[in-house]
């Protein structure tokens, strides 16, 4: 498994390293990483590379490399999952900011974490919530033996993600359904592929060891309920292609009758992810955009965006990015609504509309002047127009939370809140 974990800066200098096995030396690993992977630009073209007998696997985060090395035929997906988990843990400890500086300031804490979460290269418990109970920045001074053994039971136990004995005055649960719409449209306006990858995020402030049950308007779940005779109301049914759950969800139950039951971790976590490809309503459409190369030095652009959701709703922070060639000199842009500007660093016009009501159309027209170059320029690759947006209280898939039940020994009433938002994933329209 993992022989060593290193965090390096963009130039490949070690910020922190921890060897778990004797078969590698972090110092020579770092220099091999610099010469074989950063200098050769392999880092841009593959996340895995074996040099000699050492295999490097790395991810990038904010100008840093998180690198794991192994000399065995290790499980690569596990290693990458672990590296992402490590980012998550460090962020949780550093108030969401993982930077070179925060690593340097907290090096002893990071060492302590690296010692706890991996043993001999085998990842151990990596739940930040639980780790915080035994690794604290201030040191654990007044922990009674009884309490400690309880914490350790959490570390290793069946419910490794939740501490026992939590108490809240107000028992509250917040559910956020966040859908990212991925859409690819051809230049002719036909949808090449579209899907929704959704997340259900949960914020739990619940006392004790609650047992939650959760229902969606999933076709199969409704069918299962009907079989049992418990389905009462009729809902618009949706077809979920696939779901992934947080480890707290009892997968056996789900497989059996599609019920989602779990004991949630405390605080914020991602309960589930899902993917839907059928019957998606993409909230925005580009109506036959025109990007015409009139001459070698001039481009004409005409873009109309239409919102296709209920007019009681509205889109937020809509940004339409219209790519221009690298040799763009000047853009004359006219927009009916919002603001538009050419940004040289992305070689694109950014047209942003703060509030975009449902069922309306806005247009942009522009003339782009190009610097004529004497070199015979390579043909412009015409990258796609991309969209960013958020539409609150709307799900592109039609997914809908039917119920969330909370059972606890003490029988308290939990207050539940549900929010929906649809945002753009990779939303591209070719031109």
């Amino acid at each position: 498994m993992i022989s060593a974990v290193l965090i390096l800066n963009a130039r490949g200098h070690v910020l922190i390293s921890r060897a778990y096995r004797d078969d590698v030396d972090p110092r020579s690993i770092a220099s091999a990483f610099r010469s074989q992977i950063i200098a050769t630009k392999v880092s841009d073209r593959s996340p895995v590379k074996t040099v000699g007998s050492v295999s490097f696997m790395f991810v990038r985060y904010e100008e840093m490399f998180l690198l794991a090395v192994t000399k065995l035929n290790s499980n690569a997906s596990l290693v990458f999952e672990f590296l992402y988990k490590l980012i998550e843990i460090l962020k949780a400890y550093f108030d969401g900011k993982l930077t070179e500086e925060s690593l340097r300031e907290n090096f002893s804490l990071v060492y302590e974490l690296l010692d706890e979460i991996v043993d001999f290269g085998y990842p151990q418990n990596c739940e930040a919530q639980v780790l915080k109970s035994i690794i604290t920045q201030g040191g654990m001074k007044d922990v009674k033996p009884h309490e400690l053994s309880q914490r350790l039971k959490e570390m290793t136990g069946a419910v490794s993600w939740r501490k026992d004995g939590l108490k809240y005055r107000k028992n509250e649960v917040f559910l956020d359904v966040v859908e990212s719409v991925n859409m690819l449209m051809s230049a002719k306006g036909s949808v090449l592929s579209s899907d929704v990858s959704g997340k259900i995020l949960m914020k739990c402030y619940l006392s004790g060891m609650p047992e939650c049950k959760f229902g969606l308007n999933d076709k199969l779940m409704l069918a299962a309920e009907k079989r049992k005779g418990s389905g009462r109301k009729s809902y618009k049914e949706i077809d979920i292609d696939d779901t992934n759950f947080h480890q707290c969800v009892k997968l056996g139950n789900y497989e059996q009758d599609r019920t989602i039951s779990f004991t949630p971790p405390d605080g914020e976590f991602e309960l589930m992810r899902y993917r839907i490809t059928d019957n998606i309503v993409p909230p925005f459409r580009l109506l036959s955009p025109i990007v015409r190369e009139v001459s070698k030095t001039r481009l004409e652009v005409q873009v109309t965006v239409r919102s296709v959701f209920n007019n009681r709703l509205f889109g937020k922070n809509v940004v339409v990015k219209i790519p221009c060639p690298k040799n763009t000199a000047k853009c004359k842009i006219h927009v009916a609504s919002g603001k538009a500007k050419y940004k040289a660093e992305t070689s694109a016009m950014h047209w942003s509309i703060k509030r975009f009501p449902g069922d309306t159309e806005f247009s942009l027209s522009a003339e782009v002047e190009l610097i004529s170059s004497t070199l015979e320029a390579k043909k412009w690759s015409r990258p796609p127009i991309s969209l960013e947006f958020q539409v609150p209280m709307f799900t592109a898939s039609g997914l809908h939370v039917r119920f969330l039940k909370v059972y606890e020994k003490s029988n308290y009433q939990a207050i539940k809140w549900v929010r929906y938002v649809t945002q753009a994933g990779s939303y591209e329209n070719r031109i």
Partner: protein
Amino acid sequence: MSTPAKGAPGFFSSQNKRSEINEWRLMLSNEKEGVRKDAVKKVIAAMTVGKDVQMLFSDVVKCVQTNNIELKKLVYLYIMNYAKTQPDLAILAVNTFEKDATHPNPLIRGLAVRTMGCIRVGKIVEYLADPLRRAIKDKDPYVRKTSAVAIAKLFDIDKQMAIEQGFIESLHELLTDPNPMVVANAVKALSEIAENSEQVTLDFTPDIIRTLGAALNECTEWGQVFILDALSTYNPRDEKEALEISDRVVPRLQHANSAVVLSSVKVILRMMRWVGNADEVKNLSKKMSAPLVTLLSSEPEIQYVALRNIDLIVQRRPGILAKDIKMFFCKYNDPIYVKLEKLEIMIKLASERNIDTVLLEFKEYATEVDVEFVRRSVRAIGRCAIKLERAAQKCIDVLLDLILTKVNYVVQEAIIVIKDIFRRYPNRYEKIIGTLCANLETLDEPEAKASMIWIIGEYAGNIENADELLEIFVETFHDETPQVQLQLLTATMKLFLRRPEVTQDLVKQVLKLCTDESENPDLRDRGYVYWRLLLSDPAAAKNIVLAEKPVISDDTSTLPKNILDDLINHIATLSSVYHKSPELFVSDYKKKSSTLPNRSPSPPPSQSNQDVFGTSQQQLPPPTTTTNKSTDLLGGLDELLGGITTTAPIPTSRQSHPSDDPFGLDSMMMPDSNYQQSSSSPMVKSIPKNLLLSAQKGQGLEIYGAVVNQQGSIKYSLSLSNQSQQTLTGFAVKFNQNCWGLAPTGPLNCPALYPGQTENVMLPLGRQSQANTTKKNNILQVAIKTPQFPQPVYFQDKFNMTVLFENHGKLGEQDFLNAWGSLPDELATELVPTQPGWNKEDVRGVLAGHNVFYVANHSDQTAVNYYYSAKFVFDGQEYVVVMELMFPNGSNRFNLSVKIADMTFAAVISENISSLLLQ
């Protein structure tokens, strides 16, 4: 305390450092714990940036006497770092470790056991055993889960001790621990130990499998992966158990962690091998497809691993994602490595139903920025054309559109793939040649030029100005690469043979350029071959150069079956990412039987050769000299010479890692692979003669003999001895028809044999085209008569098949690998001894003397494997034999595995080769 360094930064840095160290030393012995902790922190900070602080070892170790866990951990960290260089000092810490291992705080007990295992100093190991034994039985699961891992560490330091002291059994016991995390760590530790040791095996009982299944529901995501990976090596007893295990694992496909999903897929794919029920198989396949697609919404690196695995899975079960091709469309912002893999999978999933959409995608990609991606997209179009016959026209149309873009590298790539399309569908699309020729001047890459020239040569008859076109290239002949030059030579020949009247000057010019002015031996040789062919027999030249070429085939499922099997067993691991078996990149990978392709020895060919010899006597044809295979050889000449004709250089998925050697040839092929040259080795042993006919059965004639191969001519080396009372004269010999067409090509030149006399004779043998190929064996049935005998005497001889091996049987490494992969399961022998005192070189020499050629070797911890190849002709067909001789270390016995397209030969070959090595 003062800080003296403050005033003089950098001046006396060594002094500076010394004072810093002294300052820390004082702080480390300060009575306040807070100060000590700060000091240790400073020391470790210095250690992190690479400063040498080991002189503080004893001072730091003293600080371990504390109840402050944070401080203790820091001290332990320091000890771990320096224990290796300061083993004597590390012993100072032993006391502390032992004490901490019985500390009331389980966190500290765990920490002590964990850290002790990381200190790889021999002396410490002795002290580790007792605390470890206690830790295994600790009441706190945190300590127990740590102890399981500590056993793996101990094993890594001292295998013998770990086994002798019963720690492996302890691990087995921990498998049934009530705590799921303990179980998971124990499984992982045990799996890794078993992977690296001969003495430990991972034999799960069905009970343990059930316990593991139960723990699967409760442990951490990593623990689930450990358990699943272990399950994926388990062989269920029957279909029922296989289905039970699958059912337990299926829910894991919904897990958010991609490693859990992929390892579940691995288990299910393995269990499916035991499932015969088609509905169940279909059902399980269906359950895997959506989760596999979902992996595409994870982080790019995870997507990459998933895509490499999906590539394997669709090769095994093409139906599994047939409907999901759209999910593999590239997004503009996907990293390049994700895009290239998606492309590869799109080609694999392309079908006549979806080809229109797919082509539109590829065409779109061909306009993107990344040159490699663009080229691969263009090639993808060509590969689809080759894969899907009915879509070929559509693909060609797209390629022609792309050529019109005039983007230099797009055009060149398109021409290269169009050449492949021509090779796949000859004489079907030559209408487009005009368009291609219009782009002649843009070509500047050798491969594209060579392809274009090949097309011109191949269709010289249809291209009116072919000579002019070729002349363009001839003008710059000396600047071209050998690849282009060779192609140009062949193309000119083709043109000349089709239109001799107008191209005489051109062909002369090119032949002269190649033979007189070129330094390249290949080019010169080919030039001479052509030249002489033209001089001696223009008609033959035509037959050879313009011979029909074999059609190339679809290469989208590139991995041979047994390699694919092996890789599927390794889903989610690096092996599956590289599409390479682990032994090819892990330095000391133990070859475990579970990862090997199934070696199922096929039964030896039945040898009921009690052919009634008498009846077939009339069938013995007159001995004639046969022309052997010459026509065949020449027919294939263009194949050999035409350059491009070897399978088209379509990139495969492997090329995504140009520097990665997909089959680990580096490690496998030793530099001495051209050893074959040293056949001057004195070790060339002849085949010993056997008693063929006893005097008793032979009316007093005793014959010893063997078929031998002397520099390519096959002879029967006979030793005739007259044990009778009369003189024997006028010997005549006849062979019964045999599958090889072997027959004497001359008389048996044996002088009169007086009673008691022995004579050695060589009977020349030849291969006739007529042969009775129904029985494939190595048996010769021979009749000998003399006027003195009332009737002929008969004997039969099992000759050594290696005498029929061709002297060009040496395969290149790549060809060998291809052959090994594409041939059916091998036939493996038990350990066979070699001649005492022979070393591996001797073996190599002996085999080379018998046209069994060394290709490569590969050694690992346990054995050295030598790879050999040979070729022979049977029934007008050439057969390739590939062999692996595995010598376990330190043994001069070997395992021989033989692979050949027709396995009925394998037993004979394996027996014959073994006999060569023990005489």
